[in-house]
C-alpha cells in the first residue's frame, strides 16, 4: 500500500489513507483526541475546538485538518490539556448545567470530558443566563440551558435524517438552536427516531418518558473515561 500517509501523534506513528482527517486516522489507530462537536457519522465541522492539536507547532482542529505525510502532531501536552479544560469550563459556566438532576448525567459527553480532563470546578464565574425549555413535542423536549451549540442536531438532521429541522439563530451569547417552524418543536417534522435526537452529546435534546433509565454505576462514563472505546482498539491490535 504505497498510498498510505504516515505521520506521528505524540511520537506514535500513525497511518492514514489520503483524505482522512487527523482525528479519523487517530481513532483508527486507537489514539483518542478529545472532542465535542465531532461525530463519526457526521462531516467534519470544527466549531468546539476541543480537539485542537499542535500540527508542526501550529494549533489546528484535528477533526477538520487532513492528515499529510510526515506531519508532527502533539495532542497530550500540558498546554493543550489546559486549553481543552478551559473550553470545557467555559461551556459549563455559559449554560446552566445542573448535573445532579440531568437525565443525561453519566452518559453526557461534556460531563465526561470534564471528568477526563480532571475538572473539579470551573475557574470562570457562572453566568446563569435565562434559557427556555421547549416541551411542546409529545416525544421529545429541548432544554436550551444544556445546549453547547455543537450543531450535531443541525448537521444530523440535514446529513443523516434528510430533514433540516434544526438551525442556529442569533450571534455571540444570543446564539441558540431554533426550529424549522413558525412556532415550536411540535410544529416540525422531527421524529423521536431521528439521528438528530440520538446524537446530542449533552442533555439538551432528550426523549420523553425515559428518565433515569440506567442506574448510577452502570452508565457509560461511570467507570470508564470517555475515549476508552477508541483507546481499546490500540490494545487489541497489539
Amino acid at each position, binding site marked *: 500500500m504505497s498510498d498510505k500517509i504516515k505521520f506521528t501523534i505524540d511520537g506514535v506513528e500513525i497511518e492514514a489513507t489520503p483524505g482522512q482527517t487527523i482525528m479519523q486516522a487517530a481513532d483508527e489507530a486507537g489514539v483518542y483526541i478529545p472532542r465535542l462537536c465531532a461525530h463519526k457519522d457526521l462531516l467534519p465541522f470544527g466549531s468546539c475546538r476541543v480537539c485542537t492539536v499542535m500540527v508542526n507547532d501550529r494549533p489546528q482542529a484535528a477533526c477538520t485538518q487532513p492528515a499529510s505525510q510526515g506531519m508532527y502532531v502533539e495532542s497530550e501536552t500540558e498546554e493543550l490539556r489546559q486549553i481543552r479544560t478551559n473550553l470545557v469550563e467555559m461551556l*459549563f459556566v455559559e449554560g*446552566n448545567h*445542573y*448535573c*445532579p*438532576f*440531568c437525565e443525561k*448525567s*453519566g452518559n453526557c459527553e461534556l*460531563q465526561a470530558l*470534564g*471528568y477526563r480532563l*480532571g475538572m*473539579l*470546578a*470551573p475557574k470562570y*464565574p*457562572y453566568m*446563569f*443566563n*435565562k*434559557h427556555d425549555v421547549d416541551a411542546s413535542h409529545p416525544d421529545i423536549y429541548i432544554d436550551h440551558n444544556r445546549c453547547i451549540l455543537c450543531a450535531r442536531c443541525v448537521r444530523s438532521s440535514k446529513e443523516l435524517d434528510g430533514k433540516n429541522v434544526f438551525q442556529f439563530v442569533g450571534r455571540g451569547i444570543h446564539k441558540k438552536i431554533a426550529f424549522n417552524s413558525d412556532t415550536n418543536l411540535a410544529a416540525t417534522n422531527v421524529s423521536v427516531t431521528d439521528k438528530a435526537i440520538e446524537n446530542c452529546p449533552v442533555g439538551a435534546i432528550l426523549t420523553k418518558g425515559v428518565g433515569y433509565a440506567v442506574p*448510577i454505576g452502570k452508565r457509560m462514563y*461511570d*467507570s470508564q*473515561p470517555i475515549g476508552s472505546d477508541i483507546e481499546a482498539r490500540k490494545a487489541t491490535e497489539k
Partner: protein
Amino acid sequence: MAKPKIATASLAGCFGCHMSLLDIDDRILKLVELVDFDKSPVDDIKKFTGRITVGLIEGGCCNEENVHNLQYFRENCDILVSLGECAIMGGIPAMRNTIPLKECLDEAYLNGPTVYNPSGKIPGDKDLPLILDKVYPCHEVVKMDYHLPGCPPSADLIWQALVALLENKPMDLPYEVIKYD
C-alpha cells in the same frame, strides 16, 4: 501534639454532603483518631475554639447569613473546601438565579397554588437573614482552596481527599470518585 481541627458548615445545602461524610462508615473511628471536630452541625459547636486545619463547606450562599458564616470560616480555616455541587455552582437552590427575586418571593408567599397567607405579605422580619439577589457559589464569595464535586460527593472522595489534606500528601483521586452528580 494536639490533633488538627476540622470544622464543617451547611449553607444553602440539604445536608446531603454531611450525610455522605457520615457514609465513610467505620473509617469515622479512624477520623476521630486523626482530628478533632470543631464548629460543626455534627457536634453543635457554634464558635471556633482555635485555628482550624480543614473547613468543609456544603451549600452555596443564598442569604447574608451564609455569606457571614462563610467569611467567618475563611478567617479561621487554613484550608477551605467546597464540598458538593451546591458549594461549587449553587446547585438546586441556584435554579432561581434565572428568575427575578421578586417573582420567586411572590410565587412562594403570595401566588403559589398551595399558599395560605392571610397577611398577604412577604416575610420581612429584621431577624430573618436578608436573601441575596441570587445564589452564589462559595468561590465567588471567598477564596476556596479545593473543590470536591458530587451530589453528594462520595464518601470515598471525601475520605481520600481529607486524609491527603491532613497528611499533606498530593490528592491522587481515582477516576471513579470524581462525579458531578
